[in-house]
C-alpha cells in the first residue's frame, strides 16, 4: 500500500518533469497541425470583414474561411473570441537575413564587389537564424523582400517567409533583379558636383551593360558565346523572364526611368523607393508601373517641402491610380511596417488602402497573389491574430501562423524582457565599494 503510493508519487513527479520539459520545447518550436481558429473578426482584405468567423488551416493552406464552416474533428481548435485576424503583413523592402549588425562589415552580406553583379542572389546569403527574424515575425510581419544593394546591378532580391531553417524553406517563390537607377538626388554629405558625376558614370554603366545584355540574349545559345555569369543573369531580364525592381526616387529620375523602361520594352517592372512619386504621380499612373514606396516615416526630400510630404506620398500615388505597396526599407525594425502604413493611412490613404499596401498589393506586385496577401481558401496560411487594429501601438499580436506553422511567440527581445523585468538577484544588499 505505502510502496504503491510512493511509486505513484514518483511516477507523477517524473511525468510532470517531462511535461514541463516538453512545454519548454514547444516554446521555441513551431507546431504543424490542422488548426481551426474560431470566433474571430477576420479581415480577409479581398473579401471584406467576417464577424465571428472561422479559419481552418490544413497542410499549411487555408482550407476554409467563413461563418458557416465545419470544423474537422482532428483539428486543434483555438477560440479567438474578441480578437482580429489579418493576413500576414508583407514588407516589400528590407535586408532581413543579410544584415545582422549594421556597423560590422563581417556581419553584412548586402554588397558584392563591383557595380555590375546581377548574378548575386540575396537568397543565398539569407541567414535563417538572424536574431532580427523572430523579432520581426512576432509583430505580424510574415513575409519580406530581402534585397542586395550598391552599384548599378547589385543582384537579385528574393521574397522570403520569416520562418524556416534553410533559405529554401523560407523562399516564398518570387525573385526580381534589382537596378539602382542613376540618381540625381544628392546623398547626405555629397556635393552636387559629386552627385552629378556619379550619376553620369552610373548612366553609362547602365546603358552599356544593358546593350551588351541585349546582344548576349540573342547569341547566348550560339557556339561563339562565352559564359558570362553577369550577362546570363541579365539575359533573363532582357527576355522578360524575370521581374525588375528599379530603385528610383527623385522626380526627374522617375521620369527618366519611365522613359528608359519604355525604350527597353520592359513590362514586368516595379519602381521602388519613389520618394518623390507624388510630384509625378500622373505620369507614373499613365505608365502603369506599380510602386513599392517607403519608408513613410521619413524626412521630405527637399527642405522646401511640407513637413508631411513623405507621409502623404503613398496616398497621392494611390489616388492617382498607381498600385502602391509600402516598405520600411529597414532591417532590424521591419517590425514597424504597420506604423509606416498607419501614418500613410492617417495622412490621406485611409486604413483599408493602407492595409492593402502591406498585404495584397505587395503580393500582386511580386506575382504571389494566388498564394499570399489575403485570407482566402487555397492560399498559404500566413496570418496573425491581434487584439485590435494592428496599426495602433496599443494592439498586441498574440499569434502568428506562417506557411501553416504556429510560430513560437518569442524573440530575444521578449526573452530579455522576461529575464530583466524583475531581475534575480535584484539590488545587491551590500553595495560593493570601489578601491579608489
Amino acid at each position, binding site marked *: 500500500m505505502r510502496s504503491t503510493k510512493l511509486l505513484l508519487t514518483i511516477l507523477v513527479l517524473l511525468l510532470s518533469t517531462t511535461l514541463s520539459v516538453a512545454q519548454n520545447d514547444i516554446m521555441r518550436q513551431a507546431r504543424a497541425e490542422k488548426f481551426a481558429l474560431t470566433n474571430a473578426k477576420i479581415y480577409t482584405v479581398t473579401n471584406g470583414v467576417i464577424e465571428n468567423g472561422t479559419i481552418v488551416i490544413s497542410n499549411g493552406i487555408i482550407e476554409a474561411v467563413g461563418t458557416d464552416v465545419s470544423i474537422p474533428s482532428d483539428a486543434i481548435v483555438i477560440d479567438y473570441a474578441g480578437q482580429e485576424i489579418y493576413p500576414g503583413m508583407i514588407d516589400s523592402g528590407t535586408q532581413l537575413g543579410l544584415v545582422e*549588425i*549594421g*556597423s*560590422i562589415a563581417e556581419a553584412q552580406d548586402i554588397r558584392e564587389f563591383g557595380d555590375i553583379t546581377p548574378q548575386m542572389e540575396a537568397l543565398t546569403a539569407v541567414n535563417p537564424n538572424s*536574431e*532580427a527574424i523572430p523579432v520581426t515575425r512576432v509583430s505580424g510581419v510574415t513575409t519580406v523582400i530581402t534585397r542586395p544593394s550598391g552599384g548599378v546591378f547589385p543582384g537579385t532580391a528574393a521574397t522570403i517567409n520569416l520562418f524556416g531553417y534553410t533559405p529554401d524553406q523560407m523562399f516564398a517563390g518570387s525573385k526580381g533583379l534589382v537596378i539602382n537607377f542613376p*540618381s540625381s*538626388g*544628392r*546623398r*547626405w*554629405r555629397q556635393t552636387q558636383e559629386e552627385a552629378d558625376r556619379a550619376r553620369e558614370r552610373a548612366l553609362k554603366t547602365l546603358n552599356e551593360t544593358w546593350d551588351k545584355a541585349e546582344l548576349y540574349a540573342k547569341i547566348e545559345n550560339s557556339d561563339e558565346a562565352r559564359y558570362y555569369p553577369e550577362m546570363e543573369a541579365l539575359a533573363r531580364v532582357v527576355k522578360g523572364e524575370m521581374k525588375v525592381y528599379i530603385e528610383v526616387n527623385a*522626380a526627374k529620375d522617375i521620369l527618366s526611368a519611365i522613359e528608359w523602361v519604355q525604350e527597353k520594352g520592359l513590362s514586368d517592372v516595379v519602381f521602388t*523607393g519613389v*520618394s*518623390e512619386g507624388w510630384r509625378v504621380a500622373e505620369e507614373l499612373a499613365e505608365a502603369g508601373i506599380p510602386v513599392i514606396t517607403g*519608408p513613410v*516615416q*521619413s*524626412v*521630405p*526630400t*527637399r*527642405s*522646401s*517641402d*511640407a*513637413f*508631411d*510630404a513623405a507621409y502623404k506620398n503613398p496616398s497621392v500615388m494611390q489616388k492617382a491610380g498607381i498600385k502602391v505597396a509600402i516598405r520600411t*526599407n529597414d*532591417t*532590424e*525594425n521591419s*517590425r514597424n511596417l504597420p*506604423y509606416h502604413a*498607419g*501614418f500613410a*493611412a*492617417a495622412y490621406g490613404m485611409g486604413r483599408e488602402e493602407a492595409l492593402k499596401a502591406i498585404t495584397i498589393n505587395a503580393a500582386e506586385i511580386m506575382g504571389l497573389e494566388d498564394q499570399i496577401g489575403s485570407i482566402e481558401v487555397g492560399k498559404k496560411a500566413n496570418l496573425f491574430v491581434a487584439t485590435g487594429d494592428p*496599426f*495602433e*501601438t*496599443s*494592439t*498586441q499580436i498574440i499569434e502568428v501562423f506562417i506557411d501553416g506553422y504556429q510560430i513560437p511567440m518569442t524573440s*530575444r*527581445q*521578449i526573452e*530579455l*524582457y522576461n529575464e*530583466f*523585468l*524583475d*531581475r534575480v538577484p535584484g*539590488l545587491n544588499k551590500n*553595495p*560593493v565599494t*570601489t578601491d*579608489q
Partner: protein
Amino acid sequence: MKTLKHASIFTILMLLFSMNDAKAQAPKGDVLIQNATVLTITNGTLENTDILIEDGKIKNIGKDLRQPNNVTVIDAEGMFVMPGIIDAHSHIAGTSINEGTSQVTAEVSMEDVVNPMDVSIYRALAGGVTSIHLMHGSANVIGGQNETMKLRYGSTNPDDLRFEGAPRTIKFALGENPTRGGRRRGIQPQTRMGVEAMVRNSFNDAIKYREAWAAYNSNRSNRKMAPEYDLRMETLVDILEGEILVHCHSYRADEIYMLMRVFSDFGIDKLTFQHANEAYKVAPELAAFGASASIFSDWWAYKLEVYYSTAYNAAILTRNGVNTSINSDSGELIRHLFHEAAKSQKYGNLSDNEALRLITLNPAMQLGIDDHVGSIEVGKDGDIAIFDKHPLSTYAIPQMTFVDGVKYFDINTDEADQRIMIDPEASIEDVVIFNREDFDMCMHEESLVNFYELVNEEK
C-alpha cells in the same frame, strides 16, 4: 542741421537699445484653449476643459473659463491637448556637433553653434515638440556642454531660442565611440578600462585645480601668482559641485554601472544615461542611484553594443522606478516622438500617462526644467501641443503647437516652404533621398571629425 544730426544719433541709439531689448525678451502670447480633452500628466485627464495662457504662462485650467479681452480663443472641441513634447537628445539646429580634438573638451559649448534657421525646427514643431536638448557629439569621453532650447522658430537670432533658467548640462560618452577614436589616433582610451581611467583622471585633475585656487584665494598676496585659469578645469569643477548635469552617451550595462561607481566616488549625483540600450539590465542599480535614462523606443542592431537590446527597455526601467524618457537623436524621429512613446504600450503595456511622461515630464526632469515645462499646470510655461486624436494613436495628427503661448505651428495655415533662409544662388534645389542612417544625427556628427577619419559610423 546740428540738432538733426543729434536726433539721428539718438534714434540710432534708441534703435540699438530696443534691438538689445528684443533679444533679451522672447515673445510671450495670450491664448484661451476651450473645450479640450486635457492630458495634464500630473493631474489626470480633464474632459471639456479650458486652458488660459497669459503672458506666456498657464494662468488657469478649468471649465468655462471667463474670456479676457485681447486673448486669442481656440476652439479645441474633440481635440487632445498635451504639454509640449521635450526631446532630451537632439542635434537639429546644430551647425557642428563634435569637438574631437581632445578626449576631454569640457570647455566648448553647443550654444555657440546654434542655427535658428534650420527647417528641422519647424518640422519638429509640426510633431508637437516645443523643447530640445541640443547635444554635443559622442566622439570623446568628456565632450562639450549642451544647450537646452525652446523651438521659437522664425527668429534669426540664436539667443532667442535659449531656454531661460535651464541648468547647464554636459555630454560624456562611453564605449565604442570614444574607444574607436582612441584606436584611430593611437591614444587612450582604446578600451572601456581606459574610458573609466580618463573620467577619474579628469575629476582628480579638477580637484587639484580647485585646491590650487582655494589655496590662492584663502591667502592672497601680491607676492603670490594666481594659478593658471583653465576653462576646461573650471567646467569640470562645476560638474563636481553639481552645477552641471551630466548626460552620458552609453549603451552597455557594464559601462553604465561603471560610471555610477565613479560618480559615487566623486559625490556627483545628477546623472542621465543617453541611449542606454542595456540600462534595463541594471535597472535596480539605476533606481538606487537615482540616475535617469533617455532612450530610443526601439532602435537596435546598428552596432555591436546595441545587439542585445530590447524594445521593452522603457517598460522595464519604468517598472523598476527609473526616470525614463524617449528621445529622437534624429531629425526624422523627432517629428513623431508621440508615436515613439506609444510603442512602450506595445512593448510592456505602459499606461497612457506613463507613456506620455516619457516625452514630457520625465525628460523635463532630466534637463532640470520640470519647474517650467513637462505638464499642464497653473504657473508653468504655455508650451502646448494640440492633436486631433489621442496622441498615442498612430492616426493622431498634430494640429497646433505653442511655445510660451505663441503659436509656431498650425496645420490649418501650414504652407509647404518654411525655410527662413534661401540660398539666392541655388537655382535648383537639392533633392536629398532619405536614408535612416544618414539622418541619425549622432552618426552624421562624426563626419565633422574627419580628423579621425570616422565616417558613417557613429550613433
